[in-house]
């Protein structure tokens, strides 16, 4: 039997391999688009970042990044703003995700609209809303003073406070969605077991539920932090030029000074940081969780 089947099996195997490759090639147009529109442009920026103004290979742009205090300050601001925003998102997002994950599915789906609607509303619209709400004669100041909470209009926008409020609002869904997904997947029997073994509800939460929800929390926080590092629109509009992030410096280097070398070097550093963080997080919680949590 095996002797007659062997050539046939080989043939089948070859057919199978060919079919696999044919099917795989269906992805080629999409891969080509990403290659031409993403890999080539960003590779080009890499190249530009290593060229001096005279066109020779040099590290001068990176040397300037390392030596000028203004760049160090921009990177520090970017990290601080991203870190605080991520922290605020965890603080606000964890309780809501926890609550949603324990509600009956139908009610949770209804409440999810509150997360999904802002998620899909244009970032520009939401940033505009905050500009209006937080301005000197805006609603927040009007009502705060009307209630006697403060006497003078507070400077809430075109500064750090405005930037943080706006960024937290825009990033929050990115934290809640992956966290909610991982919380839904937690088996309630673990908690029943903990309760049965005498754990108080808070003990059961801290030593059973929280550790089980950590992968989703790490995935969400990583996505938020990475998106903050490269965020442009909201800090540019709500920061009022007082809070300069890396992305804004890149934009002004191009728009005002046409300094491709400096902008590219900044971009390369930003990219390397992003990729390193993504890599570290995917080693920690798996790539699928990260990809599934992003839009």
């Amino acid at each position, binding site marked *: 039997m095996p002797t007659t089947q062997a050539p046939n099996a080989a043939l089948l195997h070859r057919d199978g391999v060919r079919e696999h490759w044919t099917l795989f090639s269906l992805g080629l147009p*999409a891969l080509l688009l990403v290659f031409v529109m993403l890999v080539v442009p960003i590779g080009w920026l890499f190249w530009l970042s290593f060229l001096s103004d005279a066109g020779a290979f040099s590290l001068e742009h990176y040397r300037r990044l390392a030596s000028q205090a203004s760049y160090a300050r921009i990177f520090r601001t970017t990290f601080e703003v991203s870190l605080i925003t991520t922290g605020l998102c965890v603080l606000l997002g964890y309780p809501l995700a926890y609550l949603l994950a324990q509600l009956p599915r139908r009610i949770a789906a209804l409440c999810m609209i509150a997360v999904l609607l802002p998620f899909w509303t244009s970032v520009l619209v939401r940033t505009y809303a905050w500009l209006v709400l937080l301005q000197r004669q805006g609603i927040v100041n009007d009502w705060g003073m009307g209630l006697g909470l403060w006497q003078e209009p507070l400077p809430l926008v075109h500064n750090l406070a405005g930037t943080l409020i706006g960024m937290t609002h825009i990033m929050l869904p990115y934290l809640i969605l992956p966290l909610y997904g991982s919380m839904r997947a937690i088996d309630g029997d673990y908690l029943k077991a903990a309760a049965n073994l005498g754990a108080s*509800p808070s003990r059961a*939460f801290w030593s059973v539920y929280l550790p089980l929800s950590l992968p989703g929390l790490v995935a969400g926080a990583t996505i938020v932090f990475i998106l903050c590092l490269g965020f442009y629109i909201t800090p540019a509009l709500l920061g009022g030029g007082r809070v300069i992030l890396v992305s804004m410096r890149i934009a002004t280097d191009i728009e005002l000074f046409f300094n491709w070398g400096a902008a590219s070097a900044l971009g390369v550093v930003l990219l390397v940081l992003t990729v390193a963080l993504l890599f570290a997080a995917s080693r920690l919680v798996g790539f699928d969780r990260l990809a599934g949590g992003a839009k």
Partner: protein
Amino acid sequence: MTGWLSRPASETQITHGRRLWLYAVGGAVMLFLVLPSLIVIPMSFSDSQYLSFPPPAWSLRWYENYFGSLEWMQATWTSLKAGLLTMLVATPLGTLAAYGLHVSRTRLGGLAMLVLAMPIMMPLILIGIGVFNVYVQFGLLNTLAGVVIAHSMLALPLVVLVVASGLKSYDMNQERAACSLGASRPRAFLLVTLPQIRFSVVTAALLAFLTSFDEVIVALFVSGGQNSTLTRNMFLALRDQIDPTIAAISTVMIVLTSLLLALSQLFGRSDR
């Protein structure tokens, strides 16, 4: 009510009454998420330049400003065209890729997925200036085609993810059955598989449209002149001052987004 308060709320038997604070916090966060964009809607009907709330008098003047302005209308058409074309490019490309990678199961598939997911991982500002640099060399700056190509790339990861998740819940044996009954692979895909994942594909298409319609940074760098997009014009206007016309435009955008989301929910529900 008191009955509900003393009923257990979770597996740890904690009662609803003892976690009222959690409901309060959750509700407050939900309001924080939803209210800011919603409050723009009544304010767009305000008569006042300063957008106080509640508006001292109602009027449609900001809508007249918007719909009466040649520049805003042109930008709106550009954005609508770019969104539709992006949808038409990204949906078939992404669907084919998701299907191909799902069925072929080669070892390269994981790597290909990673490459296709790259556009959502990269800082947009970097994509913006990179694409700008390339377009300068090839004369694609300020063209509709340029915007559509860049936006299609940005929309691909979404399409691939949504269609791939649709394929995961689809039983591939149905397509194998069609093939064993003599259908060619493309025919089996078009007549058997595609109709069953059509809701994922429609959802992916709507999301591709929204991705393009809402995109700001890349459009800021590569679009302009006659082909300036709506979001680009809004961003530039907001950099100078808080123009209440933007409230009217924002309201139109919120309505459009909600409609598309409701549609995708409607389709998505019947997929299961």
